């Protein structure tokens, strides 16, 4: 089989898309964000609980879309829970570069390894937006952008 397909749909991605982590609404959310990609119809809603120590205590998401978009959102929740906002922003920047095939920057080796499962997306320009939707929505939720409703 085409190696780039195998790289794109590796077992970790398929597992996240079949069994998304932290799926559903968060009761005590401090931030919410909504993302929509009208071109492909993917939708995602991100719920965040940020503590007074500036640390992300919890994240959840709801959404519909392809395997890449669902897996990416699920992986993101796994990776960002427990981090400070500054740490999360650095990781998000690294991820967005990685899926575009650019240098992910100075990430911890462990983080880099976890994010690497999504690196195969860079070989499929049409699918990059599927992978980034949840992360852009997360960024926007944290920054209080227009699409974001602070609860």
């Amino acid at each position, binding site marked *: 089989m*085409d190696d*780039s397909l195998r790289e794109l*749909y590796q077992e970790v991605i398929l597992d996240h898309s079949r069994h998304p982590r932290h799926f559903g609404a968060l009761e005590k959310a401090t931030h919410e964000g909504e993302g929509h990609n009208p071109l492909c119809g993917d939708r995602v809603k991100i719920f965040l609980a940020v503590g007074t120590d500036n640390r992300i205590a919890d994240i959840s998401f709801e959404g519909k*879309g*392809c*395997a890449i978009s669902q897996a990416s959102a699920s992986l993101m929740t796994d990776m960002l829970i427990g981090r400070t906002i500054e740490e999360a922003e650095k990781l998000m920047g690294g991820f967005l570069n990685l899926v575009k095939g650019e240098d992910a920057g100075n990430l911890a080796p462990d983080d880099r390894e976890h994010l690497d499962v999504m690196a195969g997306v860079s070989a499929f320009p049409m699918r990059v937006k599927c992978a980034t939707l949840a992360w852009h929505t997360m960024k926007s939720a944290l920054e209080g952008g227009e699409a974001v409703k602070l609860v």
Partner: protein
Amino acid sequence: MAAAIDYMNGFDRTAIAAHEQDLLDYATREVKAFNQFRIIGEAPGKGAILSFEADGIHAHDLATILDREGVAVRAGHHCAQVLMERFGVASTTRASFALYNTRADVDALIAGLSKAREIFG
């Protein structure tokens, strides 16, 4: 545009329609025989397009896999969101047949679907 019209005028339209219908019938049979994809739209006398959806595989994932197998399809909501919502269909994959397609193209489509099943289970 003129070149396209000249090209089309070089063929017998009835023959084109019969060819497209043959491909549609063949593809419909093959996709049904595959038994893992639900065909959407089987009105009599419809054009040579075949839309379908798959349990557990989103149309965009399917389209990416088919693309790598050399099969170009359209996937998603086809700018018909209202209609799709009405029928409770999230997204479909759509193959279109024209005078330059052959039964071998349909076979390639089926092989691609089988590859998608291999990946997604």
